[in-house]
């Protein structure tokens, strides 16, 4: 199996199969990252697709030594979301109707899951921006501390502190709702 760096290098050199593999490796987590930041499923899908098209257009100029690939990709996603959100009105972004978990066949379970995702989005929105960014990359998209630090251009120590504080805030919000 190819190392990620080797795979990325092949994609940089125009290997279409390598790029497709990177797409498959990163698609879900990029989509999740975007989904918790925008209002609707449709917006999340449009932006996710935009991110990969932008990545494809720019991959030839990508250099591993400057930034790990995941960090590079999430920077594209971050910038794309920022551009998008700026254009939106400041109405409440979380939407219960648009929540996911639609693959579950049991309608009761599906409703419960949708509500839990909705609560998560709402709780994330209440965080200060720096904490929200770290929590999204770390807990939703499952990036490593080093990748988050590179993506955000912060030190690992700062990211750990933001992660800790974000978790404490999320606990208050989520537990308050779940356990009364």
């Amino acid at each position, binding site marked *: 199996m190819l190392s990620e760096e080797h795979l990325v290098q092949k994609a940089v050199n*125009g290997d*279409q199969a390598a*790029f*497709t593999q990177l*797409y*498959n490796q990163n*698609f*879900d987590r990029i*989509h*999740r990252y975007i*989904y*918790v930041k925008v209002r609707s*499923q449709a917006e999340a*899908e*449009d932006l*996710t*697709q935009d991110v*990969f*098209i932008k990545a*494809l*257009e720019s991959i030839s100029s990508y250099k591993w030594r400057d930034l790990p690939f995941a960090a590079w990709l999430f920077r594209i996603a971050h910038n794309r979301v920022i551009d998008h959100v700026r254009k939106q009105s400041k109405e409440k972004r979380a939407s219960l109707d648009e929540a*996911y*978990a*639609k*693959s579950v066949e049991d309608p009761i379970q599906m409703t419960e*899951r*949708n509500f*839990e*995702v909705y*609560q*998560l989005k709402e709780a994330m929105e209440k965080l200060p921006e720096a904490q929200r960014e770290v*929590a999204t990359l770390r*807990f*939703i998209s*499952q990036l490593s*501390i080093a990748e988050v630090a590179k993506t955000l251009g912060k030190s690992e*120590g700062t990211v*750990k*502190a933001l*992660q*800790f*504080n974000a*978790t*404490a805030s*999320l*606990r208050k919000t*989520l*537990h308050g709702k779940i356990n009364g």
Partner: protein
Amino acid sequence: MVRKLDDIFNECYERIRSGESLESCLKSYPEHAAQLEPLLRTTLDIGRRASYIQPRPEFKHWSLVRLEGEQHYNHISQQRQPAKPGRFSLRQSWAIAVAAVLIVLLTGGGTVIASSNAMPDDPLYPVKLATEEARLTFAVTDAQKAQVHIQLAETRAVEVETMANEGKTDQAAITAERFAEELEKASLAIANVESAMGTALPSTTTTEPTLTEPQPPTPEEGPPAPPATVTDEQPPKEPTTPPATVTDEQPPKEPTTPPATVTDEQPTPSKDSKWDKWAARRALFKKSIDESASKSLKALENAKEKSSPQTKEEWQRAIDKIWEKGQEREPDKNGTWEWKRDWNKDGNTPTPVWPGQPSTQNGNKTWNGGESNTFDPSQNQPYPSR
């Protein structure tokens, strides 16, 4: 040195992600367990909720299809080579056909129907292209292929016009390239039909082909009936009478009269009939192509007029792509017919022209001077004589 709590919390979170239990991690830091436990449980709760967020499988799939399409075209443009036929390779065509059928079966056709009006910048456009590929896969004979390619050229023309009107240079250029490909493929398929007809023995009679389902152009049957989408009219009942849509400008004076002096070997009456039918159909094909090309060119020229100086060159490239396929070519020695360029560069109304039609303006930008739409078999050669 005392470790900071956020560092310990991070270590525990990583260990749990790697498969270790929460309890095991807390045992490593009993002095912080009371603080760490609720926080780590919160991260588990967040992870569980986040796992419910999954992209729709069809979105993920079609997003990849679109991306591969972009890769394909980027690759081509980087190499600065002429576009290869079609958006997908031949090896993929059957897979695409099967996938399209599966989509229709699984979604009740909703996605495919929804994609039918998709424009090149729509997310569903790859579905539309895949559906078209499937249609081509099921077109077996050259006549059927010609019919499908002409219909696809009409579709591409509408897309070029829309993209041009919206000022979308890149999409218009790519679509113009696709339009040109359809022209070339239609031309090839028609040439194949006529080649087969030209070498056929005219003696045997068989059943007439149906009007709605074109049959292979066997020597006995002649070419299939004109496609409904091209003409919007039924083909003539009398095989020797050209359809109204071809001759509405001015009908042929004596459509059944073969030219007397063009060849030494006169076609038999039976074969005349086949050729006349084919000639009528071919005229419809050609008229459709000419109208599509004119429409596309006009829209591109208008877009170029309105564009900034920086993008004028790009619009011109899109125009040139269509022009390249309209280059005039003479019928070969077997009488094989090829498309002639008879729309002009300003996108004016096309002028139907038959091969062999006398013209002093070959090579000019407007065939037949743009003055007459007349088809007159008594003066011109409506089909290659054998």
